[in-house]
């Protein structure tokens, strides 16, 4: 294996990681601030992809499509928070899981009703098709590089939002002591709505960015949601920094395991067995890492003790 291929795969892992970060940032904030387990987070990923596909089909403009993938999920997020989620904050986690699972079914069937059962079309703009030559003779997809850059921007943006703005201070305060900030006279329900809408918008953005290189179909959010939960468990629930580190860890580990495990097992056993065992272990790698983290740090890498 050449060094170029290795670095290309490393970049692939990082790109996958940033995509997971967009999903898990919202999930971890919502859980950290409101104490809500939101299974319907994957639905916003899907709604983002469908909005982008719809707007792209209408206007042919990718930038507008990306904007739509932020705005529509945020609006729907606000409505859902108002109508349903708000009543769940004081209930226990089982009620939240039940209610948000019902939301998954509602969103999926509503989407199928509106757009039909067949996958939709969404492609990347022509200017981003193909590859770019990075220093060191590394060939890399332009579009995936853009995803990495967008992910970096969002990570830096969230860092400033949390650490340098009034809203960020309120969010942090909300994570630490919900009762206290209510007593201090902060409009907590407005804060909850903002956080929920922000999480929905980030998930929607991830859906649109990924939808352009995958397939835009009903139920596309749930596999990503499962990995996003793994990420926030590894990173520590409520921590944006944990979500970023966890997402990058999972992204790189998953990609590298897919690449190296079959090769590794081929050294010690027969090819067909090695392929089968290697690929099975590779698909388990994220969960194995989660198990290890839970054994040694039950609250996650950056979770509160």
């Amino acid at each position, binding site marked *: 294996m050449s060094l170029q291929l290795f670095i290309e795969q490393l970049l692939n892992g990082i790109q996958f990681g940033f995509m997971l970060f967009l999903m898990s940032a919202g999930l971890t904030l919502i859980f950290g601030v409101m104490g809500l387990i939101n299974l319907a987070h994957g639905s916003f990923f899907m709604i983002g992809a469908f909005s982008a596909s719809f707007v792209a089909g209408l206007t042919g403009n990718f930038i507008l499509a990306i904007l739509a993938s932020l705005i529509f999920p945020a609006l729907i997020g606000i409505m859902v928070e108002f109508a349903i989620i708000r009543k769940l904050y004081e209930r226990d986690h089982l009620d939240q899981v039940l209610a948000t699972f019902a939301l998954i079914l509602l969103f999926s069937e509503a989407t199928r009703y509106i757009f039909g059962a067949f996958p939709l079309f969404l492609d990347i703009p022509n200017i981003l098709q193909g590859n770019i030559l990075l220093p060191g003779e590394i060939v890399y997809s332009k579009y995936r590089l853009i995803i990495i850059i967008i992910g970096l921007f969002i990570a830096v943006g969230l860092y400033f939002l949390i650490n340098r703005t009034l809203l960020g201070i309120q969010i942090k305060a909300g994570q630490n002591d919900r009762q206290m900030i209510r007593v201090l006279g902060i409009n907590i329900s407005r804060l909850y709505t903002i956080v929920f809408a922000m999480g929905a918008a980030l998930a929607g953005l991830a859906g649109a960015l990924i939808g352009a*290189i*995958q*397939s835009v179909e009903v139920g596309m959010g749930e596999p990503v949601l499962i990995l996003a939960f793994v990420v926030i468990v590894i990173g520590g629930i409520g921590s944006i920094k944990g979500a970023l580190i966890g997402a990058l860890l999972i992204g790189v580990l998953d990609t590298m395991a897919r690449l190296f495990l079959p090769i590794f097992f081929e050294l010690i056993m027969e*090819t067909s067995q090695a392929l089968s065992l290697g690929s099975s272990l590779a*698909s388990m790698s994220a969960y194995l890492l989660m198990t290890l983290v839970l054994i040694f740090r039950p609250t996650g890498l950056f979770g509160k003790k």
Partner: protein
Amino acid sequence: MFKKSVSAFILFLLTISYAYGDKVKVGMITTLSGGGSGLGIDIRDGFALAVKGEPNIEIISGDDQRKPDIAVQLADKMIQSDKVDIITGIVWSNLAMAVVPAVVNQGKFYLSPNAGPSLLAGKKCHKNYFNIAWQNDNLHEAAGGYASSAGFKNSFIIAPNYPAGKDALTGYKRFFKGSIENEVYTKLGQTDYAAEIAKIRASNADSVYFFLPGGMGIAFIKQFSQAQVDLPLVGPAFSFDQGILKAVGNAALGVKNTSQWSKDIENAENKKFVEDFQSAYGRLPSLYASQGYDTGKIIVSAMANASIKDMDAFREALKNAPSQGFKSTRGKFSFSSNHHPIQDIYVREVVEEDGTLTNKLISSGLVDHSNFYVDQCKM
């Protein structure tokens, strides 16, 4: 005069009921909601089109949601409370494996409009089980044959890590004469193929074969095209179906794929099917729709020749349908001894016709092709 016309009318009714025989209840278990529902909806619509206007067929539909446990519950309900005679409709092999053995052992017929797992063609074959579509390996075997005849010497092959994926690559290798550069199994449901595509680019392969049904295939073709890897791509028809081509877009143009059916196979039956389907549902039919349609037509043909009350006669009528009036949309069609189709499997190319992406026949890949498991089946 009045008496005469009444008795003539009664006589007429009697003749009708004689000609049409007894009522047949068909249980349609297929995927109508959630992921993969496009396939089930096409099978259901194709079947409904085939039996439209048949007064003696009653269809009872159920949505299996692509879940084996729900499919089993539906089958039990249809057999016990609806008293169906025939069950059909299942799209996925894992669901078929859960439902079919129980159905046929309770003395009902099962006609498969899609899934054809090797076990049901070989060791677990049954006299009441008929497959109208193909045995799972068939399309992949044709792809291997095509790749050899196209002069490819070294293939990179990729499929999901589950039984049908392994069957697929086995089928390809069975008919491919060249060498295999690399064999990759991905996670079922994986939709990011950056790592695999980088591997393909770095390899010495001269062709790529992939079996990635549903959304997996859409993602793979798009990413393969976006990465601008300059290698010919070959796949089975499942990833180049009418519903999927819309989502893949121009990335699929020019790709060769193998199928037992195509909308431009020339015969009267197929022409009528394509026209009727379009006018009934306002979209082009897929191969799944054609399989559902053929399944319906086989039942209609068997009903004209035997009564469902006599299981043995009806079974013979099903088996002999291809020589007793049933005309497949694929043209040549007959059953092998393990009740699977003997048929031609074609090579198609994705082309653009009047602004719509669709498939065009380019050659017949395997002629009168049966299946590998005939000898393993003791009925």
